């Protein structure tokens, strides 16, 4: 877990005081919206359809009980009793009044949190694998490097006014759960001859121009990574387009320049760095940050738990949840659990203040005070003893937090859409809910297997529709909501952009079309073991197009 030193605490406190003054001047009319807008955005404050929205940074999705309790309190005291988890592993409040936001930020500072760099053309919250430090399939815990990159990128004066926003993700597991190839920079931690380093991918992104990142360097040793990142940022800052916001992301620069030439520019910039410019990251400093993320004091336990096995035998609902929502832990006798925020016909990614309080309590009591927000808008308790699992499950169930659907078709990424967002063209949430109802029979859903549906309410792609196995994009046709469907997208180590399968459908046609796609898959899969995405890659989109559009 990261910690503030006295400088961090002072910087954040000073920023709260500064913003309080800016808000006071805005409320008095001394400054108007045009002047105030860049100031509020630098503090995570948007003006949405109904109200201000405050986006709070959760560094690489990492929380503890005290921070989750604070988020719960803010939801209760300043908002309407809930918050929304985002695909950048952050939380958004939808109804907070501007006059209250300085007080909210002050409360956040009490628990070492803030809303800085959650908007604007700067380096945003670094994201990572939500099972970091727990999962069996990682070569190391990536969070210390997420934290080092966070410290490097926070208030970095050279990168405060980039051509456009900038997103970095880090993973250390072979299976990429952090979607690094659709980030401006994606870092995959590697080890070579005993040296820790990073495979560097640059120029991925979604929005109106979806692009999979190019690998620009197979291995940058950890001692050089910040200097290498600086070289990338400098090339982007210098050559990235500022004449057209739709062409301003680094993905356009990499594409227009060509990955080889872009890499050459980065290498030249890196080579030209003077010794005095280098970030002399001392090993002692690296070690200090790593110490913050030391593994919890696990007990020596057997791989299996009698209590766990007995509970599964006695309670089929628990057994079903445990089959779906657990992830293998590197420590024998422990597991990581996904708390799904996708109940059938619920609001994807939303948690009420009371649910946040329950999650905080469980983390503190049973999970080494560790909580993660996932980029798929769920919450993870990464370290839970199998012996305690049934107790944790029952408390989750009582709080409406025991939906058994992790990575299944009803576990969708859904942006706020036109129900909240000023940019959206169409609603996302009701479409997701209606699709969920089609697949609400657990036997049917589990027969389908792993399948990611991602829904965005506009081309900005906050719902990651381009990389959904089934992607759904809301579009506006003369004031009416239509939805474009794509197939074959994926955000993992085989990242791909989905292919649009035909003309957009009316709102009410979408759930039926998704069912047709799914049933077509079930008919053509080679066996129950062939996943949806694998089947789409094998047969292409044509059988699905025919199934949906054949009658026209």
């Amino acid at each position, binding site marked *: 877990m990261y910690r503030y030193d006295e400088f961090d605490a002072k910087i954040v406190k000073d920023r709260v005081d500064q913003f309080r003054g800016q808000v006071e001047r805005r409320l008095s009319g001394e400054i108007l*919206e045009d002047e105030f807008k860049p100031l509020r955005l630098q503090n995570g404050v948007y003006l949405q359809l109904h109200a201000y929205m405050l986006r709070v940074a959760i560094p690489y999705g990492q929380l503890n009980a005290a921070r989750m309790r604070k988020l719960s309190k803010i939801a209760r005291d300043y908002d309407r009793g809930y918050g929304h988890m985002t695909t950048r592993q952050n939380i958004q409040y939808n109804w907070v009044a501007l006059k209250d936001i300085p007080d909210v930020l002050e409360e956040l500072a009490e628990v070492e949190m803030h809303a800085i760099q959650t908007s604007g053309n700067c380096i945003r919250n670094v994201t990572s694998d939500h099972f970091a430090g727990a999962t069996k399939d990682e070569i190391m815990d990536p969070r210390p490097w997420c934290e080092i990159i966070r410290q490097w990128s926070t208030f970095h004066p050279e990168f405060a006014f980039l051509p456009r926003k900038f997103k970095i993700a880090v993973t250390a597991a072979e299976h990429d759960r952090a979607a690094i190839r659709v980030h401006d920079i994606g870092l995959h931690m590697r080890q070579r001859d005993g040296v820790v380093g990073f495979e560097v991918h640059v120029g991925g992104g979604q929005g109106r121009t979806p692009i999979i990142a190019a690998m620009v360097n197979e291995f940058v040793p950890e001692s050089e990574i910040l200097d290498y990142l600086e070289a990338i940022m400098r090339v982007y800052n210098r050559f990235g387009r500022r004449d057209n916001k739709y062409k301003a992301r680094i993905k356009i620069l990499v594409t227009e320049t060509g990955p080889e030439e872009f890499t050459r520019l980065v290498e030249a910039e890196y080579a030209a760095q003077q010794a005095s410019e280098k970030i002399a990251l001392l090993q002692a400093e690296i070690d200090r940050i790593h110490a913050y993320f030391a593994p919890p004091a696990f007990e020596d336990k057997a791989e299996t738990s009698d209590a766990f096995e007995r509970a599964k035998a006695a309670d089929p609902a628990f057994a079903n949840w445990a089959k779906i929502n657990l992830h293998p832990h590197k420590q024998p006798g422990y597991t990581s659990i996904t708390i799904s925020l996708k109940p059938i016909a619920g609001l994807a990614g939303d948690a009420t203040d009371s649910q946040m309080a329950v999650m905080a309590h469980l983390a503190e009591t049973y999970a080494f005070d560790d909580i993660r927000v996932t980029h798929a808008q769920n919450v993870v308790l990464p370290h839970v003893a199998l012996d305690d699992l049934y107790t944790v499950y029952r408390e989750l169930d009582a709080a409406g937090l025991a939906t058994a659907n992790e990575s299944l078709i009803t576990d969708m990424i859904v942006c706020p859409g036109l129900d909240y967002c000023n940019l959206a063209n169409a609603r996302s949430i*009701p479409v997701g809910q209606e699709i969920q109802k089609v697949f609400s029979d657990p036997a049917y859903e589990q027969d389908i297997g792993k399948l990611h549906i991602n829904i965005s309410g506009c081309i900005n792609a906050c719902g990651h529709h381009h990389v959904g196995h089934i992607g759904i994009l809301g579009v506006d046709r003369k004031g009416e909501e239509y939805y474009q469907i794509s197939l074959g997208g994926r955000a993992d180590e085989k990242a791909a952009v989905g292919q649009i399968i035909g003309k957009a459908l009316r709102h009410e046609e979408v759930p039926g079309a998704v069912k047709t796609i799914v049933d077509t898959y079930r008919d053509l899969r080679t066996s129950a073991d062939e996943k949806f995405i694998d089947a789409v890659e094998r047969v292409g989109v044509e059988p699905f197009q025919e199934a949906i559009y054949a009658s026209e």
Partner: protein
Amino acid sequence: MTSVRPKLKPETPKTVTAWETATGNVVWLRADQTWTQDLEEIGVFTGEAAEAALAAAKTQEGSITDPYFMEVTADGEVAGRETLRESIRANGPTVPYGVII
């Protein structure tokens, strides 16, 4: 960046809408050019009167934020291409929120 707002013809009935700066609440202009949070109370304007109402609203950008024209019928019902957006803006999300399912 906000959504593109359609240009309305002078004769198209319209009101002026904005956000209350302190709270972010959605507000509309009454006929007497005071602000209301009740869609039932809005003023309907056309032509030069509408332009004058918007110009007057823009002089109040301390207490309100980003005023713009919203299309309505002569009876004050939300109308036009932005009906869905403005209805949601007026009435809130179309899905229940803040509840445990």
